[in-house]
């Protein structure tokens, strides 16, 4: 009883801190290189295929490759009306994918390694059960509503330097850890020709390569949104103490208790 009480109110454990910062560095590199890769072909599609000669779901104005131009006259492959065509690209596009892709996949290795370690340790240490997954009794409509109203009014409690977490906080962390990040990894795998050769169901899961790419894009937006809100909350609740707690494991409140005159 005593033990579980201490660990549930203590600071972040070492493995949480290591995984947190490894994943942070990996995520920032992945987002940076991901945007670079998107700039090379800033068009998104749905289904298996999509290219400059087919209609896009939407196109982003993020590089000079936007509003593609400079193509030779298109030639039909078949005699039928509406036949698919071919055309040659005659202009030099912006393309930094050599380092962009390699750095993306290198960072992905770190995210996958930190993520797997975190998931295993989170299950076996009881971290998920105690700190991340909301208990059933917590999930009352009234408490949820109260937490939403509290956040809307920016009533943010000051830093505790670790768990316990609030209800919305738990739901958000669980969504990132169990849904958004795994979705990034699996949609990423779904764009690999070698991996989808072995596991073709990955393509069926999303409805094709380009659907996986588009979901990969929206999951990035969701994670960037999480990053901004997370940073905002960390700053509002006390950036210095939160940063120290996630880096050294020192629990700010506890330290103050011990050394108070």
């Amino acid at each position, binding site marked *: 009883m005593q033990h579980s009480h201490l660990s549930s109110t203590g600071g972040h454990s070492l493995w949480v801190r290591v995984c947190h910062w490894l994943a942070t560095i990996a995520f920032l590199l992945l987002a940076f290189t991901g945007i670079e*890769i*998107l700039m*090379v*072909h800033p*068009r998104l599609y749905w289904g*298996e*295929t*999509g*290219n*400059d*000669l*087919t209609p896009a779901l939407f196109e982003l104005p993020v590089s000079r490759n936007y509003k593609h131009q400079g*193509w*030779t006259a*298109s*030639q039909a*492959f*078949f005699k039928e009306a509406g036949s*698919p*065509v*071919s*055309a*040659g*690209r*005659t202009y030099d*596009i912006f*393309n930094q*994918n*050599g*380092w962009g*892709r*390699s*750095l993306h*996949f*290198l960072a992905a*290795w770190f995210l996958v390694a930190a993520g797997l370690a975190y998931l*295993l*340790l989170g299950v*076996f*240490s009881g971290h998920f059960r105690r700190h991340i997954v909301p208990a059933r009794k917590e999930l009352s409509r009234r408490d949820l509503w109260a937490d939403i109203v509290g956040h809307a009014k920016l009533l943010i409690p000051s830093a505790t330097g670790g768990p316990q977490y609030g209800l919305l906080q738990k739901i958000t962390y669980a969504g990132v850890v169990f849904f958004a990040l795994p979705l990034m990894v699996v949609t990423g795998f779904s*764009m*690999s*020709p*070698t*991996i*989808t*050769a*072995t596991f*073709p169901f990955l*393509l069926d899961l999303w409805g094709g*390569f*380009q659907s996986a*790419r588009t979901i990969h894009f929206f999951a990035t937006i969701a994670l960037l949104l999480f990053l901004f809100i997370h940073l905002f909350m960390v700053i509002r609740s006390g950036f210095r103490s939160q940063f120290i707690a996630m880096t050294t494991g020192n629990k700010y409140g506890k330290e103050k208790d011990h050394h108070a005159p």
Partner: protein
Amino acid sequence: MEKKRIITRREAIISGLAAMGGLMLPGCSRVGQLPPTYGNILRMGDALTYAAHRSLLPGQSLVREYSHRDITSFPATGTLNPGDPSRHNHSELYAKLHHGDFRNWRLSVEGAVARPGLYSLEDLMRFPSKKQITRHTCEEGWTAIAEWQGVTVRHVLESAGILPSGRYVNFFSFDGWADGIDMVDALHPQTILAYAMNGKQLPVPHGAPVRLRLETQIGYKSMKYLQRMVVTEKFDDHGDAGSIKQGWSWYNGI
């Protein structure tokens, strides 16, 4: 007091990871030689991906094949005609061969093969032909589906009598590129020397008269305008003609 023998969670996790590592070791023998990294951390990441794909995935899985109605429009990018005189470093030889409708074109098969030789377009067409409707995946992010017809690289290598010492198959193109693939990809049943696209002779912008189709990797590994195919025992980065020294990954199954 006698120590109790209990298995703690930590011990269970550690021994479990050790056992997983042990299971993966035999697979590593399939990796063979890793591509050079030049001390560059990005190339180390590429090598790790290559080693992981080769040790964890069965190398001969077939990529998805589509039906005729799935064929899409298909951009031609990069070199559109190596013989175009307005092109820097254009190939006069290619222009001449193109003018003669590639009747005088020959694919030179060399290196670690018992019978090096020259293959005309007719020679390649006499071999058993393989048709496949597959998805081209460009590193830029776009995809397109087309029907390709050709002869498997495996069949050409076997008819030339590939030697057991051969580890890499290197391709040289009329537009000055050189690139290699390992034997797992070279012997893959869908790796073909394609001479037809969507039921017609391969168009010049798509690599006439013959291009490689390497379906298990990203588009730029499927070299257009083939001139030579050389089997080597050692890895060759091909210097400036290869892409690895210009910062591009040699292996691109991802």
